[in-house]
């Protein structure tokens, strides 16, 4: 009995170790390539760690490329998108969670259907709509587009958080003298903080990775985001993989930091509501 339990525990830890290795190994490889000197890139291509390491790729990327601009742009776009989407999705998620109204099912259907259309096909129409408004080649335009893409899922997510909060609380607040909106702002929103963190995280990472629209709506370096910038490494420097991977590693940092910060709330927040559907 005891040894059986020990075996189970062992198997459990081993399985977890396998997952951790599987999750981290590709990231490790990214790091390895980024510190491998160019002359060793191919000759020591399959070694687990190069015989010589260098930070020159990082130095180059930070000091001599437009990467800091890309980085700043990405940070602005992803941050703004995350904030805008979370605000909008809180409101619409609250409506779906707390009210019964005629258009509810239509709204849900609309949000689901917009998830089914390949975004590729929206590029041309969106470009045509944004360019007379001067929103192409601008970070604001990107924020608007990304926000629209992410609002539906974020709405469902926020709705599930609100569903987990008893209705009694708003009713108590309304009897205490609050309007529904004040009750929402002062009582319900603070209780969904973990959910808000989860939503912020989802949206931030989604916006951080987006390539297609960043590529199509932006020309030139000034408003390019980092994924576009990564592609410029391909053309400009005749695919300098070391520099590209160094840029990739750098670009991972904010996304990972953000993710590490919110991942605690992610599960905790989702637990409160659980995505019950």
């Amino acid at each position, binding site marked *: 009995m005891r040894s059986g339990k020990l075996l189970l525990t062992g198997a459990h830890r081993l399985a977890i170790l396998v997952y951790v290795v599987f999750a981290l190994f590709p990231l490790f490889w990214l790091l390895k390539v980024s510190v491998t000197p160019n002359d060793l890139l191919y000759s020591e291509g399959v070694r687990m760690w190069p015989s010589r390491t260098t930070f020159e790729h990082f130095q180059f990327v930070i000091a001599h490329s437009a990467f800091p601009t890309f980085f700043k742009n990405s940070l602005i776009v992803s941050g703004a998108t995350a904030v805008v989407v979370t605000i909008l999705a809180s409101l619409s998620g609250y*409506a779906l969670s707390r009210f019964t109204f005629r258009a509810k099912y239509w709204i849900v259907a609309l949000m689901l259907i917009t998830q089914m259309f390949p975004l590729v096909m929206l590029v041309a129409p969106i470009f045509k709509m944004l360019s007379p408004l001067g929103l192409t080649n601008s970070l604001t335009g990107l924020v608007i587009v990304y926000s629209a893409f992410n609002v539906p899922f974020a709405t469902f997510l926020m709705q599930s958080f609100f569903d987990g909060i008893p209705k009694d609380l708003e009713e108590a607040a309304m009897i205490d003298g609050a309007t529904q909106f004040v009750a929402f702002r002062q009582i319900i929103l603070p209780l969904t903080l973990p959910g808000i963190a989860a939503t912020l995280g989802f949206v931030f990472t989604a916006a951080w990775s987006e390539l297609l629209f960043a590529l199509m709506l932006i020309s030139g370096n000034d408003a390019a985001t980092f994924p576009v910038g990564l592609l410029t490494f391909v053309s400009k420097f005749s695919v300098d993989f070391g520099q590209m991977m160094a840029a990739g590693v750098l670009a991972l940092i904010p996304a990972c930091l953000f993710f590490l910060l919110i991942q605690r709330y992610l599960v905790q927040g989702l637990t409160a509501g659980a995505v019950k559907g």
Partner: protein
Amino acid sequence: MMHQPIAKHRPPLRKRLADASEPYLYSAPALVLIVAVMLVPLVLGISYAFRDIQLLNPFSGGFIGLDHFRALGQDQAFFGALRNTLWWTGASVLLQFTFGLILALLLDKPFYGRGLVQALVFLPWAVPSFLAGLNWAWLFNPVIGPLPHWLYALGLLDAPHNILSDPNLAMWGPIVANVWWGIPFFAITLLAALQAIPRDLYEAAAIDGAGPVQRFLSITLPFLAPTIAITVLLRTVWISNFADLIVVMTNGGPADRTQIVASYIFTQAFKRLDFGYASAIALVLLVLLLVYSMLIVLLRQTMLNKG
């Protein structure tokens, strides 16, 4: 006592208006954004499916009815892409879900360092998808990546070559990358749902004499079912539309063996610049996904009604 006909009580118009409009006020900002930036372009995009739109041809733009769809009916590449989409979506969702569920179950048990492990295994989700694709393409490359050599050592490959250029195996490359990238999504949502299951249910079942397998089947699964249904539905829709990894890793090749509908649309639109035809394909994909979603929703409804 006086008996008056009971007139249905009507609050003043202003209050009725205010009450009825409240949910719309909450959802309006999101709706305006979605309609303006997604629905209108979507309708425009759908209209392209019935027009001849070629970016390089200044005389195009005319209305051509169902011509694109007729061409599509003859397009062997499209049907190949459709088969590949099924394969790509099915394998990705199934593997992501299975491994995501196992990971969630593993993380549901308390152990020392759980917080850190959780943070680490969820990290792939934070990696931009095309960077993930690039990175995996590296890993599969025998010159600069270790995977082919390991697979060879394990006897899974008869030579350490790049599976991305092997027509029979190429699809596994993007699928593995996709599984790596997508496990966290399932694990996070399923873990959250797992932790919402009241613990005393398990205790009660254990006292009733249910073993671990029975407990999993009779408590865990039914509790997870709604979450599973909704996440699988959303993920299926997303993944079948998700071309980033394929475009980056194989670009549909070799010999179109990894061409899925979404990447085919991308090729038509941005390589051949035939937006009309691309839109027609996208519309077909949209209809297929709609049918699929409705089937899932119906299935769930009947399951709920039975339960």
